[in-house]
């Protein structure tokens, strides 16, 4: 049981980077970035190829760079080419499938069993619980970075873009610019997340990022329950906690014989509940009145 929770903690922390990416793009910038799945895989593929070439350290910035590029294209499509933001994400996601296979040299699976990765380096250095430590370090660094970044003038402008683009314009800032920067940063985190996951499980396949956007959204919305209001730092930590809790609950469910293939359905249901729940709750008085009214008429 303990090892299951350890795995959950590790997966939760690595995945929390994607959750933090959505925290930036979805919660702050107000863009639901559907290229997340493809970008996650892109990070995994690029990271793996660089690590296989013998540069484990370089694999991290390389993956992030690839993520920036992917985010840049998504942002360009929606700010300069008149493509709806959801559609832009879907288009980039589809395109990335081919890109990712090309990156992996035409194969849909790469094996890193004997490859030196950031994880094996740490293991070699004799760090205990090295996977969790590295994932924790990454998550902590990103939380600190985001907290500082979102307080800068650029960060404020990114947050305002999601809140009131008119106001951004009247502050002499081009909302297209803030969208580009926000999506580049967010996608670099998503790619880093993919890169770390691939190196941690020592393999990449083309489906490694499948459904990641829903899983991350579910985690983000669970995290919101931990820190519904408060400062950026608190909410970012909440996002990380959400990611861990999601993986932990999932791990426990597996233990009680839920088949592994249920992961994506569970994440979908969580997202539906988290978004539809508050909406239905707000409408409940109205609905119950209408029901009572109808019943009253039938009785009469």
């Amino acid at each position: 049981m303990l090892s299951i929770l350890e795995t959950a903690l590790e997966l939760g922390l690595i995945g929390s980077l994607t959750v933090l990416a959505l925290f930036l793009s979805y919660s702050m910038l107000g863009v639901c970035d559907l290229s997340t799945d493809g970008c996650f895989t892109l990070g995994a593929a690029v990271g793996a190829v660089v690590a296989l070439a013998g540069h484990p350290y370089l694999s991290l910035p390389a993956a992030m760079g690839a993520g920036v590029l992917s985010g840049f294209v998504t942002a360009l499509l929606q700010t300069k080419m008149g493509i709806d933001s959801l559609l832009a994400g879907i288009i980039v996601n589809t395109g990335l499938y081919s890109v990712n296979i090309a990156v992996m040299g035409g194969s849909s699976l790469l094996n890193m069993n004997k490859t030196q990765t950031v994880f094996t380096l740490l293991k070699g250095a004799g760090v205990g619980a090295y996977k969790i430590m590295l994932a924790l370090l990454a998550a902590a660094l990103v939380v600190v970075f985001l907290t500082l970044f979102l307080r800068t003038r650029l960060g404020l402008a990114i947050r305002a873009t999601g809140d009131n683009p008119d106001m951004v314009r009247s502050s002499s800032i081009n909302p297209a610019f803030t969208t580009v920067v926000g999506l580049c940063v967010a996608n670099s985190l998503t790619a880093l997340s993919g890169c770390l996951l691939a190196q941690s499980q020592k393999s990449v396949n083309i489906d490694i990022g499948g459904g990641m956007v829903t899983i991350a959204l579910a985690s983000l919305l669970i995290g919101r329950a931990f820190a519904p209001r408060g400062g950026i730092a608190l909410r970012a930590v909440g996002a990380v906690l959400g990611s861990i809790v999601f993986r932990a609950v999932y791990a426990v469910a597996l233990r009680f014989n839920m088949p592994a293939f249920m992961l994506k359905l569970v994440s979908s249901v969580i997202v539906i509940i988290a978004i539809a729940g508050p909406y239905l709750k707000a409408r409940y008085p109205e609905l119950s009145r209408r029901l009572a009214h109808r019943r009253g008429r039938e009785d009469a």
Partner: protein
Amino acid sequence: MLSVSHISKTFNPGTVNEKTALHDLSLEVADGDFISIIGANGAGKSTLFNAIAGSFFTDSGTITLDGEDVTLQSEHLRAKNIGRLFQDPMRGSAPGMTIEENLALAAGRGGWLSHVTRAEKQAFRDRLSLLGMGLEDRMQQPVGLLSGGQRQALTLMMATINPPKLLLLDEHTAALDPATAEKVLALTREIVEKDRLTCLMVTHNMQSALDLGNRTLMMDQGNIIFDVRGEERSRLQVSDLLVLFREAAGRKLDNDRMLLS
């Protein structure tokens, strides 16, 4: 200061919804002018503001601001020199961000990666205390919690925190209750006088159109039909304005909202 020369704007050209909103309009605004603009709904007042602020480009004509041709400059670049308030108090500020963050963004000091300094925070507080609304003690609260009047007052502060070359007020008190509207209007007058701002104000209130500022314009069908200042203006009464409107427009005044004000 501001020179608008022969601008025209037609929306939906070539369709049944074609509407000429501005028709060969020209306007010269001198430095320090405070101009009130009146006119019926659809006269083109807001369209004129949109054209000046750069919400769209005009079909023809040129707009020059402080010697710089801004005709084809995009909106966010013009915003450096133009402050603007709308009728809707929600349009000027970001509801999910705190008062302090909104002001910091509007002030826009420092580089992209700079944080708000302690001195700036104090300056924001000092400036907000001028409003006398107690907002300076609520710096960390999200703007979404403020009332419409408070938000409009905050927006006024944000628009003038770096004194703009030109301030555009588009019926900025019309959505507020009379007492709050009075207060925001008094604040407007105070700030405009203190910073000697050049200001254009659209209003449906004929009395304040004559009380505030040094010049009054009347618009109809996308053009300025009446322009009065100085001696002539100081003798004007609201009733004269109504008569003038009928004469100039050559048709009966049909806007109840104007008659009632």
